[in-house]
């Protein structure tokens, strides 16, 4: 990940981490209400899909999908700021 932990903070590193943090907050804010709810429940609390489904008043399948969409959107928004591998592969291709 890009948060740099290897050395004492330099102004550049601090600036970068602050920028990344800002981008993460923006990306989270850009999610739909249910996506953000699902993602926060999953990641800050490790809630089960069934619990998320209960809160979202949806099926487990739909809740799973919501988590997936949230991660996908966050990834799209944040990948450029998270160091190596900024290229997102076109998924599901044959090789």
């Amino acid at each position, binding site marked *: 990940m890009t948060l740099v932990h290897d050395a004492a*903070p330099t102004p550049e590193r601090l600036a970068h981490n602050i920028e990344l943090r800002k981008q993460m907050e923006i990306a989270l804010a850009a999610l739909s209400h249910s996506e953000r709810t699902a993602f*926060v429940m999953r990641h800050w609390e490790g809630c089960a899909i069934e619990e998320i489904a209960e809160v979202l008043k949806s099926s487990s399948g739909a809740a*799973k999908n919501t988590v997936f969409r949230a991660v996908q959107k*966050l990834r799209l928004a944040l990948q450029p700021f998270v160091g190596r591998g900024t290229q997102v592969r076109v*998924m599901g291709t044959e090789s």
Partner: protein
Amino acid sequence: MKHMTEEELIAYREGVAAQRAVIVRHLATCQECRAELERIEAVLAALDTLPVPNPGDDYGRHVWQQIAPRLPERPARWWQAWFEPKRLGALASVAALLVIAFLTGRITKQGPTGNDVANKDQTRERILVVAVGEHLGRSEMMLVELSNAEPTDPTQKRVNISAEQRRAEDLLDENRLYRQTALQEGDTALASVLDELERVLLDVAHSPEEVTPAQLEKIRQKIEAQGILFKVRVVGRELQERQKATTPGPAQQSPTKSERNKA
């Protein structure tokens, strides 16, 4: 060979993949999908370092005001407590609740220990370590900026440090809570640096909004005499090491989460 889709890899990382074994087998042989999983992992790992959404942000307030009442009742759900609307108004409420959450984690650890509690406890420690690290980073930045402050208009005799002061005030509230926690945790080294930092922050917060160059020089000398910037950097680095040590490896993280939830 057919690669895993992004959806499958995310589901795997989230511990909700239907055909886990198939994915595991594929990942064992496919470098490309492993690299893709790593990229997903990197984004999620960065997000995991967010201590908690800022209570000043409307999204945090709105989201949690809406969902908190609908959540099933259960004890010690720290993220529910964090977003209780009445607490949002309190100064440094996030920091306060973070510390409470951390301590609660410690207390529950003394009960029947299982992977579940240990994992959550580790997550809390990681959150606290990251939060203190960031607090030190912010403090450092403010002090550096203050040290470099100059009159905006060279013809003016006074330097306006009101922006730094406001930041010092916010940092003070956070600082007190982290210092208390460090003391309670028996981390006297961290507590002592936070104590010194607190005195410098107090000085800054209580200075006049506009200072003469001589007054500013006095503040600078105080900062330098205590070597506080150096100490803050050293402790910040130590915390980063600790953070590395408590950050779970990517491979077992999501399965653990999902297993936990089945229990």
